[in-house]
């Protein structure tokens, strides 16, 4: 990959982000433009901003890699990521906006009037935010490595520093414009190269066998294995080896490996002849975004798929950076319209990564072998088109990928920093927000440096699982069930979210469990979400005396449209005025009688 074009593209994206963020608001207006200046954010702009913030590294790079390695089953990821907004639209969007809450802890306090539940929700927001930030940093590291060959941690460090600097300096003043800009940037960065790639594929005779049979090399290709891996062969394979296979060193010899499992040491170069089917690699916990949870999937594919569906469908509503964006909508109806627009924008975007995955299976099948499947999106333009055009398109994709890290990371950092500054650090204030920003980024950065080789990209799925098991019960029951009590909410969040978190930690730690238990831990949503709901309901029913006073009024505010409330209030006022007038008349009548 030619970094002469990619590095300037990445730099350009960073600079453009900073400029739009800092100066989007600087366009001053005079009073004659008053209506323009004080126009609230419309549903479409807000939807673009939400989408820009939401489409992260996992969407931009990860899905293509997953499809490349594991085939069309992985399409459940984009489906789930998009469908989460449908659930959000149906059950949460408008009432959440009408609650007046800015963050999830705010919602907990508004609904349950309990500081303890508020703090607990704050803890979970920080936990989910950190889990979600981790893969952004890892993805940035991967991108920069692919582009320039820089060490793994450099990309994460750059994103962390840039985001912390922007957020702490208050540079995200016009965050809506920045994020909307990022959405369109990301869409362009995937759409334009995708069009060229599809055209090239058509001109190429349109190899149509992407998923029908195991992928095969279209030309002689040499693959360098970066991490030691076990190669599983269904049939014998002829390959030229320069390195160590099965413990025996080879130096450019042609080997015929019999069917079975073979160990390839790190640093070995394998050269495959044209037409050779691509062997599958078995991998422990050293894979990238797309290979890590493979083992659990293969054993219990149906369970894993349902776990994934539940986590992504229900987890979206609890993502801290998504929730805060709904505050920007002026009222509940606008929040609902925004969500519909988000569904359209995100649905459109998610059509593209699978295209890259399928083309990657045709043109770059060896990526499944090297563990860099996530780089498929970045490498394809160069591989398929080549030349200057390939370089330019590659640079565009690289810029888009960096936009993905920057926007999601900055949104998450702001959300986590807000909660840290408000609920964890001793007093509120601008300085504490800066401190919170540093803390919000420092922890995932340290974790990403510390756990370098961990399958952290699954952390996105796992963050969804934790969010679905803790915040989904809180939001859905909080909005739709009037008997929810503070102890019930706290217990439900602790049990549901806590158990999901433990499962996540166990998976990330690579606990040596196999079989059913591994699947249970790797895809916790299927049992932890019902557990969270059940605990919340049962504990609430057991503490009927603790239903917060004024629940009926609060729920009425959540559910009644704003105009209706205004009308109701006007009616009340008129009634009061009439009563006063009548009272005055009565008084006068009595005076006359006297």
């Amino acid at each position, binding site marked *: 990959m030619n970094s002469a074009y990619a590095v300037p593209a990445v730099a350009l994206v960073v600079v453009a982000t900073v400029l739009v963020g800092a100066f989007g*608001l600087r366009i001053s207006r005079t009073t004659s433009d*008053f209506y323009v200046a004080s126009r609230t954010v419309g549903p479409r702009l807000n939807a673009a901003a939400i989408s820009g913030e939401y489409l992260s590294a996992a969407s931009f790079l990860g899905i293509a890699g997953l499809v490349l390695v594991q085939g069309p089953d992985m399409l459940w990821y984009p489906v789930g990521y998009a469908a989460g907004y449908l659930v959000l639209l149906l059950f949460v969007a408008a009432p959440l906006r009408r609650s007046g809450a800015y963050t999830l802890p705010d919602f907990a306090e508004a609904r349950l009037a309990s500081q303890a539940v508020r703090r607990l929700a704050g803890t979970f927001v920080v936990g989910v935010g950190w889990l979600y930030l981790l893969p952004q940093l890892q993805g940035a590291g991967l991108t920069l490595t692919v582009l320039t060959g820089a060490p793994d941690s450099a990309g994460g460090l750059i994103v962390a520093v840039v985001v912390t600097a922007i957020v702490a300096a208050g540079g995200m003043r016009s965050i809506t414009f920045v994020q909307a800009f990022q959405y369109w940037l990301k869409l362009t960065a995937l759409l334009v190269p995708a069009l060229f790639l599809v055209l090239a594929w058509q001109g190429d005779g349109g190899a149509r066998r992407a998923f029908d049979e195991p992928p095969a090399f279209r030309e002689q290709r040499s693959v360098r294995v970066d991490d030691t891996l076990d190669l599983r062969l269904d049939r014998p394979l002829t390959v030229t080896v320069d390195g160590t296979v099965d413990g025996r060193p080879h130096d450019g010899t042609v080997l015929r490996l019999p069917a079975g499992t073979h160990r390839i040491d790190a640093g070995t170069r394998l050269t495959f002849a044209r037409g050779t089917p691509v062997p599958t690699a078995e991998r422990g916990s050293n894979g990238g975004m797309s290979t890590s949870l493979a083992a659990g999937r293969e054993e219990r594919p149906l369970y894993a798929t349902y776990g994934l569906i539940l986590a992504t469908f229900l987890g979206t509503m609890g993502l801290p950076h998504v929730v805060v964006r709904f505050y920007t909508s002026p*009222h509940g109806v606008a929040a609902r319209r925004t969500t519909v627009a988000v569904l359209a924008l995100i649905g459109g975007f998610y059509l593209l990564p699978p295209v890259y995955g399928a083309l990657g299976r045709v043109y770059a099948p060896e990526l499944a072998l090297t563990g860099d499947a996530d780089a498929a999106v970045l490498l394809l333009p160069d591989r398929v088109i080549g030349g200057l055009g390939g370089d330019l398109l590659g640079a565009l994709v690289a810029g888009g990928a960096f936009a993905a890290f920057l926007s999601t990371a900055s949104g998450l950092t702001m959300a986590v*920093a807000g909660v840290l500054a408000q609920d964890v650090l001793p007093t509120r204030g601008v300085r504490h927000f800066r401190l919170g920003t540093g803390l919000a980024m420092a922890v995932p950065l340290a974790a990403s440096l510390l756990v370098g080789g961990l399958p952290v990209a699954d952390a996105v799925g796992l963050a969804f699982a934790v969010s679905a098991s803790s915040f989904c019960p809180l939001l859905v029951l909080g909005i739709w069930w009037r008997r929810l009590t503070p102890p019930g909410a706290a217990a439900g969040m602790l049990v549901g979210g806590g158990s999901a978190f433990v499962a996540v930690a166990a998976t990330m*730690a690579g606990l040596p469990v196999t079989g059913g238990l591994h699947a249970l831990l790797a895809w916790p949503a299927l049992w932890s979400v019902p557990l969270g709901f059940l605990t919340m309901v049962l504990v609430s029913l057991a503490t009927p005396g603790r239903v917060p006073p004024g629940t009926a009024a609060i729920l009425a505010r959540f559910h009644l449209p704003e105009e209706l409330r205004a009308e109701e209030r006007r009616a009340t*006022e008129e009634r009061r005025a009439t009563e006063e007038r009548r009272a005055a008349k009565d008084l006068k009548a009595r005076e006359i009688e006297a």
Partner: protein
Amino acid sequence: MSDFLAGLCIAILPFLALGLWLGRRTARPQNLGGLGTPVEHATFQTLHTASLAAPPLRAGLTEETARRSARRLRTLLGTDALCLTDREGVLTWDGVGGHHRAEIMERLAGPLDSGRGEAFPLTCDHADCPVRWAVVAPLTVDDRVHGALVACAPRESAVLVRAAGEVARWVSVQLELADLDQSRTKLIEAEIKALRAQISPHFIFNSLAVIASFVRTDPERARELLLEFADFTRYSFRRHGDFTTLADELHAIDHYLALVRARFGDRLAVTLQIAPEVLPVALPFLCLQPLVENAVKHGLEGKADTCHIQITAQDAGAEALVVIEDDGAGMDPVLLRRILAGEVSPSGGIGLSNVDDRLRQVYGDDYGLVIETAVGAGMKITTRVPKYQPGVHSAARVLPE
């Protein structure tokens, strides 16, 4: 292996946090083990128990607060059962013998009326019921009996009668404090209502005079101004809700500025920088317009040339930052401090101190106005408004579509 360790670290983090929180929640005052004689020790213990029982009662006498304090009170008295009632029924029963509730309520009528304590034996069918005697001590606030504290014991005991009386008196004091808290809240509410901004009479007079001056020369303009005036007064005189949104407040400011511009023409230049993210923020009704009015007044005071006013609203995490700046005459900071402290009454209008008071009432003392000024250096007023504050909801829809 390092993967495993790292994962373990991540797994342990939340438990550490939980432990820390629990530890802070349940922290006792320093261990007094080696301090003082046994008698002093017992005193400390008693005072500590009493201090733990106090906070719930400060919220008044309800089932919830009674339940939370009854356990501590029973420890204080060392009885088998303790019950708190209001005038109608038993609020909570802590300890054994809950089946005596009805009997006790029957016997309470007398003490609740007379306000005097009483001890009486209980009749019970259960042979092994440890509750045989009840000591009733009324809870009085301002000479009115609010309820009673009933301590139950196996046998008659003069000590218990005395102790229950003392505890009841202590509880009564807490309830009196709760009453005071309540009246303080009411006072604050009343104060907020009283402080509720009214537009200044000067402004009404000046606006009408300006409109009158246009009626002959430019009837169309006069009509427009009258409509602006109508919109502004409708907003200021509306009676529902104490809170509005930043968007609505800005519109009121726009109407206000249109009227002022009619009077001063080109001498007034206003620049706006509004982040659309903060427009839905709820804030006290008419808390920015007086600041703009102030800026206009100071900006035009003793100056012949144009006065620049800058209104900025920024998004700052969980808060909105609103800055109103003018390049006018400014003010002596000492005088300003005295005005804000209420020592000197301002020269006209409802002024800054009113806005400052209301912001502090609603959001707490951290959220008062921050004013930077000096004589001849203009004035810059900064307010921070939290995006969410319990109990703060804007009254109506932000903007018409």
